[in-house]
């Protein structure tokens, strides 16, 4: 019998299992849906390790805890260190100024520097360059964590976790809302496209008052476009409007995206608590790690550390809620 049972094999569960194993514990993982795949919302993520950009519209812990992520992931999967470029059309420059006031860790770049960083965005005259940011391919990252755990003799059970499991750590995301009543789903829609005519080397964010877009290169001319943020729990479909908005924003970034081939459409719900920050919570005998919201890859390492600190050393990190009976 293992020391711990991790329930859920999304980015949170795999990161927690990885951290526990790294600290010498033995772990079993339960997920009835099997190994990481399209059933989990972390499959559809952007994979940006962008704490400074995210800080523009997030609270301080995201900036601080998110910085742990880059090194943590670099030890376990391929991380591309190429920074993030944030641009806006001339008419939306007030948004660029606001963005720059709300965060740190960037340099202002003008037309020449933008053209040097991303020749295909030479039409933009002003931007912000976040040099320290990085990105990864979420599906590769999940597969690498999974493989790393298998190699460390972690057993993956493609079943529901049995009742009365000792020392269980529940990382089921939105499925755990039966016990985490303050958890909600925030709808996100994304597209994967192939645009061999466009060569971007780093994540790019196009600011717009209503239709902000990020685009993450996956290599070989493949890009992920994301992501909408809608206070809806309908995970079944992308709306025509969202698709129009994503594609027209990409088109505004570079008209050559108009010729892209649409490879994938993704829709899922991000699990979030009311303050959109993650929580580690003990209810009865079970520890819940949840609420990673749009920061699955950015905050999973910090959450995993927090869980390990709690269950191995009884150390309470700031993410730990009051324990509940």
């Amino acid at each position: 019998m293992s020391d711990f049972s991790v329930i859920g094999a999304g980015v949170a569960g795999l990161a927690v299992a990885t951290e526990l194993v790294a600290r010498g514990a033995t772990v079993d993982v339960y997920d009835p849906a099997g190994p990481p795949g399209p059933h989990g919302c972390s499959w559809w993520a952007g994979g940006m390790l962008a704490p400074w950009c995210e800080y523009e519209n997030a609270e301080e812990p995201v900036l601080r805890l998110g910085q742990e992520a880059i090194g943590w992931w670099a030890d376990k999967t391929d991380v591309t260190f190429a920074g993030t470029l944030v641009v806006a059309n001339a008419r939306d420059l007030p948004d660029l100024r606001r963005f720059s006031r709300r965060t740190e860790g960037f340099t202002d770049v003008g037309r020449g520097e933008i053209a040097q960083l991303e020749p295909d965005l030479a039409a933009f005259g002003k931007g912000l360059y976040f040099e320290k940011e990085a990105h990864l391919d979420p599906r590769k990252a999940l597969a690498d964590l999974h493989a790393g755990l298998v190699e460390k003799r972690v057993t993956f059970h493609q079943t529901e976790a049995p009742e009365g499991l000792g020392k269980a750590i529940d990382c089921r995301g939105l499925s755990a809302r039966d016990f985490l009543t303050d958890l909600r789903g925030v709808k996100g829609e994304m597209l994967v496209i192939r645009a061999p005519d466009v060569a971007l080397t780093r994540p790019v964010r196009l600011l717009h008052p209503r239709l902000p877009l990020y685009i993450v290169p996956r290599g070989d001319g493949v890009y992920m476009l994301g992501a909408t943020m809608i206070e809806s729990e309908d995970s079944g479909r992308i709306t025509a409007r969202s698709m129009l908005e994503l594609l027209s924003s990409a088109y505004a970034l570079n008209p050559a995206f108009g010729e892209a081939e649409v490879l994938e459409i993704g829709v899922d719900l991000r699990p979030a608590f009311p303050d959109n920050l993650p929580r580690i919570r003990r209810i009865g005998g079970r520890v819940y790690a949840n609420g990673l919201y749009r920061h699955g890859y950015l905050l999973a390492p910090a959450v995993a550390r927090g869980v390990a600190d709690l269950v191995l050393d009884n150390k309470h990190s700031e993410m730990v809620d009051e324990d509940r009976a």
Partner: protein
Amino acid sequence: MRTFYGTELSNPLMLGTAQYPSPAILEQAFRDSGAGVATVSLRREGGAGQTFWQMIQDLGVLILPNTAGCHTVKEAVTTAHMAREVFDTKWIKLELIGHTDSLQPDVFQLVEAARILTEDGFQVFPYTTDDLIVGERLLEAGCEVLMPWGAPIGSGRGLNNEYALRAMRAEFPDVPLVVDAGIGLPSHASHAMELGYDAVLLNTAVARAGEPQLMAKAMALAVEAGRLAHEADPIEARDMAEASTPVIGKAFLS
């Protein structure tokens, strides 16, 4: 005191609920400002926004659902019906977008939708321009409130046409009027109240501020200051100084 379909507002600040960094910050903004009304959108959320809508209802303020994002009468009417079911209220903020860049209301469709909804028992709060004739048509259609824009939605430019807003106040002395959209700063909100408007509706200025709770409170104070100033009957502006102490006895002719 002008009332909104018979309801007196505890606080003439109406706050939108979109674009906040988190629901927790949204809640704090309402608590710190004491805003009397929360507007909430349904169009984009489809039928699946229940969890978020419940959070809005838990704020304990009056709910004014809106038809944000609707471009046609049909869409707006459907959304209004859904809003009535979800929030159990006859109130509907009627928003019919006519132009993609300015988000300017399509006043022709607005009047038509207002008539349909009023006949259907709704109490309509129309988001309109500052055009007097459109205002008149909306009243004829059954609206008992008018909500002219200060400036385009989210632009934060304040009251673009003070003259038109004054004219509207003078033209419709008994109709509750709300400046809706375009407010960026507390001074803008205060300005609207100084003109004798009954309430101010805003969203972006608070939700996208660096500290939404602080801006919400600033807006509430400004609205209250403007309301008191209007009641106090301000002095008229004049071109020359008017000494508050008598000048006789001073050598002012030398």
